[in-house]
């Protein structure tokens, strides 16, 4: 959580663009990562992330603090945006074609082997159920708490724990079957 986040949100709700700008700076990388792992294509991830923050800024007056962090609200918008994108995209592009375009071009590759393995992980995550994807990304990539994840996926904390367990199990299984090791 960002320092002084509550005051920043209050200012943003009142229409102060600079306050929303600070929220954008803090949360944009997280939302972008979340979206990119789910959609795999850089261009789609950029479009969706932009749309998420535009929607958030236009509807921030409707934001109500219900005890969950601001990030939960943003992740929920992102999740819905991805679903909408897939709904329209499924008619245009075959998912097999999209897989070939996975890109992790962020300068994190210490060597080529890690790059290949990361791309494989992203590809296999994409083949999981939407809820499993969300839980894995938020729990292990973004390091969100069970409570925060539960708020985003709109399920109980117990259900999230169960989903997390099943998602890891399924990912390991697929990874071993296809690549021989995890």
């Amino acid at each position, binding site marked *: 959580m960002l320092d002084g986040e509550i005051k920043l949100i209050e200012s943003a709700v009142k*229409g102060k*663009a600079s306050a*929303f*700008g600070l929220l*954008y*700076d803090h949360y*944009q*990388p997280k939302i*972008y*990562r979340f979206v*990119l*792992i789910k959609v795999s294509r*850089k261009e789609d*991830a*950029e479009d969706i*992330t*932009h749309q998420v*923050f*535009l929607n958030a*800024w*236009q*509807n*921030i*007056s*409707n934001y109500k603090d219900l005890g969950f962090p601001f990030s939960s609200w943003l992740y929920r918008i992102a999740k819905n945006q991805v679903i909408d994108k897939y709904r329209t995209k499924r008619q245009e592009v075959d998912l097999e074609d999209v897989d070939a375009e996975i890109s*992790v071009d*962020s*300068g*994190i590759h210490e060597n080529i082997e*890690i790059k290949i*393995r*990361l791309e494989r*992980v*992203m590809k296999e995550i994409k083949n999981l159920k939407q809820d499993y994807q969300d839980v*894995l*990304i938020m729990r*292990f*990539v*973004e*390091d969100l708490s069970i409570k925060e994840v539960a708020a985003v996926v709109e399920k109980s904390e117990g259900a999230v724990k169960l989903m997390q367990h099943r998602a*890891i199990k399924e*990912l*390991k299984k697929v*990874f071993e079957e296809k690549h021989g090791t*995890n």
Partner: protein
Amino acid sequence: MELIELLKKLRAIKADSGYTKESRAFILNSGKHENANLMFFAKEIISGVFRSGWSIALTAVLLLLTIGSFSVLKVLYPITTAVVDVTGLKAEAQAIDAQIELTNVEYASATGIENKTSTARMALPLTGQSAKRKQAQSGQSAVSAESTSTPPTIDSVLNMLSE
């Protein structure tokens, strides 16, 4: 475990800095938020008015005006209501109807005379037995007309004319 370590490494993913700057500037300068704010405040004001019971008061006043308008008019303009005499109007209407009926009776009797005279005129050119039969028939009808019609003076005059 190694799989989770790989997932954590995905944290290093970052968006292109050029895209980030452009997107941020566009969103913050979109200006649509001001409109959204205005709409939000307008919505709040309207809902506040409804909540404070203004609508109920307004409805009550409208109802009072509608129901009480007739009595108020009666008090304010008594002349307009006094001028209207319903019984007088009724009597006048009945009188008009009676006149129409009388003229109709006169007209009916007048047309009856004309019919009889025309048939008499048509019967004149006939000759022989048919003429006699016709005359006998008209004679019978004249007699029956004489016995049924109420004003005997007109019928008798007509009979005389036909003979």
